[in-house]
């Protein structure tokens, strides 16, 4: 057996069912071996898309996503995907071919220092020099990727190692003296946390991406205590967005209620989140009166940005039930009254006095699906609208590039999610800018006839950049105009063999959205929307969450124009 076959056998032993990838010279032996195997391989049209698909496969299923790429350009194309997975703690194993060992470091054809390049954007990476190390490295890679705080791991295999005769064993033991994730929370800290929560008058719970694995425990804790729950962009789905205790998303484009709750609360129970700058706004104005209880599996996230008064390092699934045992129903009627008042005053709203707007398109999808689908998004205004108007109710069904904010993520992510959840409709909410960054993957969608509906909120602009330029650059719209050179998206879809629709008005939109969804077929729906829509509320860069601009989220009786409201 050659190294290439040994690699595939080792992957099979890890339970791998599907691999996303693109072949090339230095990974030829592995693709040759694949020819004889039953492993499913999905041929993407660009390696970046392969990485995003593998990332989304993990996010949607909880099983490690796998991507293959060749040396040099192939591996370099993975970098954005790996960085995206790294920032959002997604378990991906990337396998790259490399030039033969004697050629490494000689500037050989299609050679790049992939080990060096990918180090900072992976949880760990390997360069295999001995064919018999393959099973050991694969086992370690999957273990590292999927345990503790998940993350991407890259395995670089030179071509001659792939071709060498494998004489080793597949029975390996993992021994990593420098890697021992803390799962069980410290009892003393949990007691302190419970005490702080019990004595709080105005507590909130903030759930991040860690909640996607610990959602049962999150829901259980929330139900037992009655604590108000905020879900960050990465935490959407970890707690049902429609639940009465849900306050929505915090941060730059968070709900008024969530941001005010942060400002006025006396305790934050942070669960599986990292207090990202888009969540906190100006740190000194973030939750000024609150005791911060921070549960996270990664000790490096504790007190990195927001100082934790009660840190608990551990897995939510282990810590939350123990914490729940020590906390009963919280008597916080008054706090709930305030919160309900805010919630009542600031429901999601948008005006329909203009041409079709992105928000109503997104709302139509929510209504047509009942939120029971998988949502992926690109990055930009539509992403924020979707986070607020189309948050899903189940874990692992809301898939977005949070930390890195990668345009071009949503479309290939829909592919990965579709392979992870083959019986579900996947809706990709996109903008006309970002959808073009991996548009070539329409071919992959067509080939596998995946039930993916791509909803393009097409305002002919790089909308989020335009919004910043309007608000903070004196309306100097620099390089954001796309409408004059956008393709005809319906025709483009048709060229790929996919149903395409151009939709210009709300009546047609309302009629056609449920129809297309019901088909369960790939479709591209291009909604031409109002070009100058802005996302509100908005916390300007460098401001505190209490200084959000409420804008059009202000109720009718108040002046409509944007104004700074101190809460």
């Amino acid at each position: 057996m050659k190294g290439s076959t040994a690699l595939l056998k080792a992957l099979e032993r890890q339970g791998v069912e599907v691999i996303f990838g693109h072949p090339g010279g230095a990974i030829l032996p592995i693709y040759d071996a694949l020819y004889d195997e039953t492993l499913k391989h999905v041929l993407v049209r660009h390696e970046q898309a392969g990485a995003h698909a593998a990332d989304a496969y993990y996010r949607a299923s909880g099983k490690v996503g796998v991507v293959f790429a060749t040396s040099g350009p192939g591996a370099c194309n993975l970098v954005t995907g790996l960085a995206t997975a790294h920032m959002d703690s997604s378990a991906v194993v990337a396998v790259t071919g490399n030039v033969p060992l004697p050629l490494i470091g000689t500037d050989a054809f299609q050679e790049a220092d992939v080990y060096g390049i990918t180090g900072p954007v992976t949880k760990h990476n390997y360069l295999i020099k001995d064919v018999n190390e393959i099973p050991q490295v694969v086992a370690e890679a999957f273990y590292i990727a999927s345990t503790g705080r998940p993350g991407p791991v890259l395995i670089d295999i030179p071509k001659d190692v792939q071709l060498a005769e494998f004489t080793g064993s597949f029975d390996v033991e993992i021994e990593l003296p420098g890697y021992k994730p803390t799962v069980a929370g410290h009892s003393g800290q949990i007691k302190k946390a419970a005490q702080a929560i019990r004595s709080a008058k105005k507590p909130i719970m903030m759930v991040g991406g860690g909640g996607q694995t610990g959602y049962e425990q999150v829901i259980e804790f929330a139900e037992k205590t009655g604590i108000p729950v905020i879900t960050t962009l990465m935490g959407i789905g970890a707690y049902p967005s429609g639940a009465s205790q849900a306050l929505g998303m915090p941060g730059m484009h968070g709900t008024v209620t969530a941001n005010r709750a942060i400002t006025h609360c006396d305790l934050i129970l942070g669960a599986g989140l990292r207090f990202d700058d888009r969540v906190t706004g100006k740190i000194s104005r973030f939750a000024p009166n609150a005791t911060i209880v921070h549960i996270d599996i990664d000790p490096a996230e504790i007190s990195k940005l927001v100082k934790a008064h009660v840190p608990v390092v551990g897995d939510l699934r282990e810590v939350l039930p123990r914490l729940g045992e020590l906390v009963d129903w919280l008597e916080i009627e008054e706090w709930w009254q305030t919160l309900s008042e805010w919630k009542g005053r600031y429901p999601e709203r948008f005006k329909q006095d203009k041409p079709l707007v992105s928000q109503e398109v997104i709302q139509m999808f929510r209504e047509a699906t009942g939120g029971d689908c998988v949502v992926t998004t690109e990055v930009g205004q539509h992403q924020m609208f979707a986070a607020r108007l189309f948050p899903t109710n189940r874990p692992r069904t809301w898939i977005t590039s949070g930390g890195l904010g990668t345009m071009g993520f949503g479309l290939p992510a829909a592919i990965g999610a579709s392979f992870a959840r083959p019986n579900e409709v996947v809706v990709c909410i996109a903008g006309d800018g970002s959808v073009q960054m991996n548009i070539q993957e329409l071919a992959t969608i067509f080939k596998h006839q995946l039930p993916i509906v791509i909803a393009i909120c097409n305002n002919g602009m790089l909308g989020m950049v335009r919004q910043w330029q309007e608000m903070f650059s004196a309306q100097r719209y620099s390089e954001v105009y796309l409408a004059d050179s956008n393709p005809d998206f319906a025709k483009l879809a048709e060229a790929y063999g996919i149903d395409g629709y151009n939709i210009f008005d709300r009546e047609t939109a309302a009629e056609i959205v449920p129809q297309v969804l019901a088909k369960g077929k790939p479709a591209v729906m291009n909604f031409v929307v109002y070009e100058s829509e802005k996302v509100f509320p908005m916390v300007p860069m460098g401001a505190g969450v209490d200084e959000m601009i409420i804008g059009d989220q202000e109720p009718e009786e108040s002046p409509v124009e944007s104004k700074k409201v101190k809460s």
Partner: protein
Amino acid sequence: MNQHIMSVTVRDKPGVLVRIAGLFARRGFNIESLSVAQSSRPGLSRTTFVISSQDESIEQVEKQLQKLIDVVKVIDHTESNYVDRELMLIKVRVDTPDDRVEIRQIAQDFRARIVDVAREGLVFEVTGDEGKLRAFIEQMRAFGIIELIRTGRIALTRSGSDAETKIDRAEAP
């Protein structure tokens, strides 16, 4: 300027130093000296970094270092009692016989060993903490330093402190 002397026990593998150096660089820490050698346990190396930064706090870097899979143990010596040493080779110019006598006398006071003798210069080996090396360099400056090289500092926690027991666990054979 915040200076820290850190011992980092790592798996003896290619690429480990790049990862560590990358972490320091990303957070604006300058590596002032670095020494690497095998530890008492096969497969593990002990590295000593002296790093400095204007304003960054070391705590986050320490946690990030701990996260690296190949890093087994991190100790910031600056937080406890420690002994540190550095070795220097220094070539000093000798112009006159009087100089020679005076230089040798100073060297003796510093317990510096002569490792090479020539008509125009002497090479000394000096071991000590940073203060001692600096003082010796100052003394020799008057005569003329032709060349000097230092190994970078190495450090051990003094017996009886907390950190020491932790090292033992990581490095015990």
